[in-house]
């Protein structure tokens, strides 16, 4: 193994996809979006992530296609660099170091060797638009320090800048004015709207701007929902504008279609509005897009639009206003009440998602798997409405059961509570509502836990509530006479001196239930529901409670609000040890004895990993985050790591994820987790001319195998039908520039014979030997060896057909290389 690097906190997926406008490739096959420090390349047809362009060291703030080469992409970042990528292969071509924090990027076809960026030099909220000259050089990393200033005092958002009429002018909006800078005349026109002094115009603020691609027309969006179309703006006096008004709230983004015949707008209404011919009466809508539209972009080919939404989602929309694909990241715009959970079945991270939904998020693929609608009510997006909140959720019985609690409290006394129990249906591969309990408790439910012990054949759920009770729910036969339906009923109600029940927890074997009542911890026998013993440390209300695991299962841990962490020995019923630690998050690792606790201090949050049996922590990392950490969870690893260092051994079996107050999902790793992400469809790129869907991929592979089988049956000799698309050698030949190739007639016979290679292997091998004697014999031998091994493999294992094909084509590649050598000699002879 490689030498271990130090463990550090890294951001892990779930980055904002909606931070900037998405960009389409010229052929509309790919869509690019920023994602934290990376740029993601998605296929518009399959929604699949095909590449992750990594290299920036800070947030990527802008992406644009290279106007002079539509197979290249520029990106800029807060790290002060502009990078040029080949997005087809996912290769970084060049890095231009500007050295200033770059906030946005614009490119123009007319300005060939320069790009425009937004920077701020002096004051924190004064931003400038500058043009950066990109020097031509062959080196990888180039300094680009030649800045020329275009506009000052602009808004930092790229939505507030637009270039029009092939780069003749640039329009910028901020607060109450629109300024237009004409590059040729080098003049700036400024148009101001009446500002907030007048109540009627209080929300006149500009929010975004777009330029008509063909005409001199600027569209601006405003806070009051109006869209203004400005014309004649080259004249300070004769300028004029039209108003379009449909949105009732702020216009978030505007975009013209490629021909300029229609204007797209979106906002908090979650409706994409298409204004045809820029007339008020002629508009089309695409409603119910789910969340606030943050950005709108249009593909250069004009066939697709896309909208970025506040719930971290990108929707690809056809020209006829039909949504065709959804790229969904981790939903982040709601409060996380449920905490982080791991679905035992899919190993997906589960937490609050869209309002009223539980989202299942794949950490491996940085992508949302699905949304489970818990509340099952239409969400009305309006300010001041009191919504139903999904507050608690828990998985039980290896993912067979899911319990959720939702609440809505309009007034102090009017609490609406509902507990739902969902059963996993293997047929439909989803959760189905089994039992709905109205008002399971009189007051807020504080905790919810399943008994996950194996010996319990009867699933058991415990809820604790502020009303002073904890209730045990068990799965029983329902009233159905066939005894087939099952449902949950309350089995036992426990209380302790009318104290509020604050937490509950089952021991690992399920024999004991610990319920904390404010400052007191009570231990109950789960067979008889008898109170076994109580622990009281008088150290404040118990905030967290958990049993030790495996060898430490005789310990019970409790963290109080006063910053005391206690560990009780259940055998001796005595306090084993206690420590002063202001614990915010306490999570046991399901695969080991380790328990992670995150404490909050004035400077930041610290992590402690310890075993309950010994009070000394295994691992301490100070200051893992500046902010308060709200939730954490251990996610079991599929393949255990093997850290030898003692300090990192706790990371071997599980990985620890935590969520901060600003909802960034972080983890501990030696390398950035997104490096490990393996886009499943990376291989799909090989077949460029074919529609690359996973479905095709599976089928295509299958067909090849079938072909092979047929070939086997007919001929004992190795016969391979070379698929031209799959042979790199041929594609290399096709990709070689025409001017270095010999005439086709010269190549033809060799080329054909190379295709016939598989039939007459021996003769095929001989021809190149005759022509090119300098070619080392070793390589030929090795070729033959390869062939030989292939034969064996082929007979042994048909499943390896894919590999086989690959190797075969390699040998052919060599063949073709030889041809090229031939052709060069032929040229020198001439």
């Amino acid at each position, binding site marked *: 193994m490689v030498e271990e690097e130090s463990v550090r906190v890294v951001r892990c997926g779930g980055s904002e996809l909606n931070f900037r406008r998405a960009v389409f490739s010229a052929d509309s096959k790919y869509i690019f979006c920023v994602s934290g420090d990376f740029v993601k390349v998605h296929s518009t047809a399959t929604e699949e992530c095909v590449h992750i362009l990594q290299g920036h060291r800070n947030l990527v703030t802008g992406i644009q296609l290279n106007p002079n080469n539509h197979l290249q992409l520029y990106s800029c970042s807060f790290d002060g660099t502009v990078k040029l990528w080949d997005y087809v292969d996912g290769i970084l071509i060049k890095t231009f170091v500007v050295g200033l924090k770059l906030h946005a990027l614009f490119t123009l076809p007319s300005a060939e060797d320069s790009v425009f960026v937004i920077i701020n030099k002096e004051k924190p909220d004064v931003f400038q638009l500058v043009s950066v000259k990109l020097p031509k050089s062959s080196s990888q990393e180039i300094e680009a320090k030649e800045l020329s200033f275009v506009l000052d005092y602009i808004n930092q958002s790229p939505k507030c800048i637009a270039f029009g*009429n092939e780069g003749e002018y640039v329009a910028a909006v901020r607060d109450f004015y629109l300024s237009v800078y004409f590059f040729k005349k080098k003049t700036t026109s400024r148009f101001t709207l009446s500002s907030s002094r007048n109540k009627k115009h209080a929300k006149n603020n500009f929010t975004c701007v777009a330029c008509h691609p063909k*005409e*001199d027309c600027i569209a601006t969006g405003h806070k009051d929902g109006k869209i203004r179309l400005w*014309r004649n703006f080259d004249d300070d006096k004769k300028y*004029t*504008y*039209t108003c379009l008004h449909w949105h009732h709230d702020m216009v978030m983004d505007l975009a013209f279609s490629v021909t300029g015949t229609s204007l797209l707008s979106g906002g908090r209404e979650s409706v994409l509005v298409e204004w045809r011919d820029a*007339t008020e009466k002629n508009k089309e809508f695409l409603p119910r897009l789910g969340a606030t539209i943050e950005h709108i972009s249009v593909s250069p080919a004009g066939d697709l639009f896309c909208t970025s939404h506040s719930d971290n989602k990108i929707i690809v929309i056809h020209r006829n206003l039909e949504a065709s694909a959804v790229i969904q990241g981790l939903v982040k715009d709601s409060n996380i009440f449920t905490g982080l959970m791991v679905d035992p079945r899919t190993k997906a991270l589960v937490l609050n998602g869209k309002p009223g939904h539980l989202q299942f998020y794949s950490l491996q693929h940085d992508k949302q798997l699905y949304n489970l609608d818990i509340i099952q009510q239409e969400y009305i997006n309006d300010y001041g409405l009191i919504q139903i909140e999904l507050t608690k959720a828990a998985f039980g019985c290896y993912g067979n059961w899911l319990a959720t609690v939702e609440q809505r409290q309009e007034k102090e006394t009017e609490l609406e509570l509902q507990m739902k129990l969902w059963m996993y249906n293997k047929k439909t591969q989803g959760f189905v509502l089994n039992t709905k309990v109205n008002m399971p408790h009189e007051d807020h439910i504080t905790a919810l836990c399943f008994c996950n012990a194996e010996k319990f054949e009867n699933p058991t759920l415990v809820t604790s509530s502020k009303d002073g009770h904890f209730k045990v729910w068990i799965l029983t036969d329902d009233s159905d006479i066939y005894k087939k339906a099952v449902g949950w009923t309350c089995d036992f109600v426990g209380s302790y001196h009318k104290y509020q029940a604050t937490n509950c927890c089952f021991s690992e074997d399920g024999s004991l239930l610990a319920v904390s009542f404010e400052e007191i911890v009570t231990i109950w026998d789960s067979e008889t529901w008898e109170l076994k013993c109580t622990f009281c440390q008088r150290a404040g209300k118990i905030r967290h409670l958990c049993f030790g695991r495996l060898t430490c299962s005789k310990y019970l841990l409790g963290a109080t609000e006063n910053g005391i962490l206690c560990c009780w020995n259940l055998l001796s019923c005595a306090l084993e040890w206690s420590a002063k630690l202001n614990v915010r998050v306490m999570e046991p690792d399901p695969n080991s004895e380790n328990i992670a606790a995150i404490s909050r201090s004035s400077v930041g949050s610290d992590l402690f990993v310890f075993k309950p049996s010994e009070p000394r922590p295994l691992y301490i990392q100070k200051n893992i985050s500046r902010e308060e950490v709200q939730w954490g969870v251990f996610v079991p690893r599929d393949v255990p790591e093997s850290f030898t260092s003692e300090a990192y051994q706790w990371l071997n079996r599980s990985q620890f994820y935590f969520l901060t107050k600003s909802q960034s999902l972080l983890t501990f790793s030696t390398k950035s987790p997104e490096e490990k992400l393996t886009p499943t469809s990376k291989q799909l790129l090989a077949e460029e001319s074919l529609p690359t869907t996973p479905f095709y991929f599976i089928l295509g592979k299958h067909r090849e195998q079938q072909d092979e089988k047929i070939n086997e049956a007919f001929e004992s000799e190795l016969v391979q039908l070379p698929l031209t698309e799959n042979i790199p050698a041929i594609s290399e030949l096709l990709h070689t520039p025409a001017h270095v190739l010999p005439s086709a007639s010269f190549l033809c016979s060799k080329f054909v014979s190379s295709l016939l290679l598989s039939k007459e292997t021996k003769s095929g091998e001989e021809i190149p030997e005759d022509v090119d004697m300098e070619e080392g014999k070793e390589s030929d031998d090795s070729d033959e060896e390869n062939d030989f091994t292939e034969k064996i493999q082929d007979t042994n294992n048909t499943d390896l057909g894919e590999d086989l094909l690959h190797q075969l084509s390699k040998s052919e590649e060599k063949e073709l290389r030889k041809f090229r050598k031939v052709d060069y000699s032929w040229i020198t002879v001439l």
Partner: protein
Amino acid sequence: MDAFGGPIWSMAVSPCGSQLLVGCEDGSVKLFQITPDKIQFERNFDRQKSRILSLSWHPSGTHIAAGSIDYISVFDVKSGSAVHKMLVDRQYMGVSKRKCIIWGVAFLSDGTVISVDSAGKVQFWDSATGTLVKNHLIANADVQSIAVSDQEDSFVVGTAEGTVFHFQLVSVTSNSSEKQWVRTKPFQHHTHDVRAVAHSPTALISGGTDTHLVIRPLMEKVEVKNYDAALRKITFPHRRLISCSKKRHLLLFQFAHHLELWRLGSTVATGKNGDTLPLSKDADHLLHLKTKGPENIICSCISPCGSWIAYSTTSRFFLYRLNYEHDNISLQRVSKMPAFLRSALQILFSEDSTKLFVASNQGSLHIIRLLEGSFKHLHTLQPQSVESMCLLAVSPDGNWLAASGTSAGVHVYNIKHLKLHCTVPAYNFPVTALAIAPNTNNLVIAHSDQQVFEYSIPDKQYTEWSRTIQKQGFHYLWLQRDTPITHISFHPKRPMHILLHDAYMFCIIDKSLPLPNDKTLLYNPLPPTNESDVIRRRTAHAFKISKIYKPLLFMDLLDERTLVAVERPLDDIIAQLPPPIKKKKFGT
């Protein structure tokens, strides 16, 4: 003269002014020749199926466009035949309406015809090929009027929803000569149908059912951003519609088609300043006098003694004698009016009700002596200028008559000698009110630019006070008022006071007090409380303004202690209007 085509729906004068087009109910378009002395029928154009609602000449005068129902015809003036017939889509928001009425057409010099119709569309047609070029759907209701600017770079349309839309000819890109018509700004100043629009070089003017005349200046055409560049909304005519008989406490109200005579109520109660006193006698509606025929009343007057009423329509003059017997009133029309008394612009009775002064629309002034039940024509004054007089004022002693037209100065006549006494020098702005003060015979003249002059008739010169105020200038707020002064009167016992009012304020000018300068508060602020005399004297100035009553149509002194004011609340007018087109308002 009759066009013999049924009701006439539209008319248009040719660009050179010598020909008149008339569109009739039966679908005929008739061309008339205008000669200085008469209008002569010239020819008929090809008869169309239905009524011709709108007409427009091509600026060169060779073609005309006629809007009918469901189609627009383009005629060649020389041959009189229809060149093109352009059918208008009946579809209205996807629903087929019964008919599409072309409310207005405009023919531009480049051959473009712009039409506005009842389906809410503004459409651009190419008259050479007869094809639709562009369609703007701007309203859910009728678009009723259109007016094009002289430069043909902008036009304005008015809709039945009360919105006025401005269209401009805008170049597509700054460096190309290609231009397109773009709808720019909507203006919502009306609540009801906008029936008529006009496009002046610097402003858009619109008016309709809601009785407002709105002048919206075009900011890009205004040179300096001063008070003239502000939006103006005119609700009432700038003239006096009410006359008063001081002796009998009668008020005569002039409406479009009738006159109403009311006797004022009275009270015996007394109260403090600001109290509303109970009426001991209610106001009486004495008379409701309807005109005959469809013509509007131009002017009316009641004599100070209350026994004569005179009014005039566009073609006839009426004089009535009122007899009062206790509570009964009898009305007797004075018949056999002389032929020259056909139409009057202004009627005035002398203070002693023995003489009637009539300013005819021919420009002459007739003086008629009134006798019990009959009359006698005394004299006709023929001013030198051709313009007709529209304002008259007579001195209380009956010696002087002042008459003013729209632009030339005020003429003062000596009634005893029946000849011109003098002429007040002409001023740039028209006169809005005239009055002659008792005793001093000072003529007070108010102009539309809010200037007030005082001219001494015996001395034939401006008075000292008038010269002082001209030298110092009026307060800027006084000059910025919206409506002109429509009536001036005097207090018989306080010669230094001039009482005047416009639609929004009533003012007493006390000539004895110092004039306000721009630093002092014009609208008087300090109520007469227990302020010390020094402060009051320091802050007091000549203009005492009250804004209690508005909109104020009339205010006059009945006697030394009584003032009558007539308010016309806008809500009353709006309540009488037909309901506006219902529009869904968001959030309701």
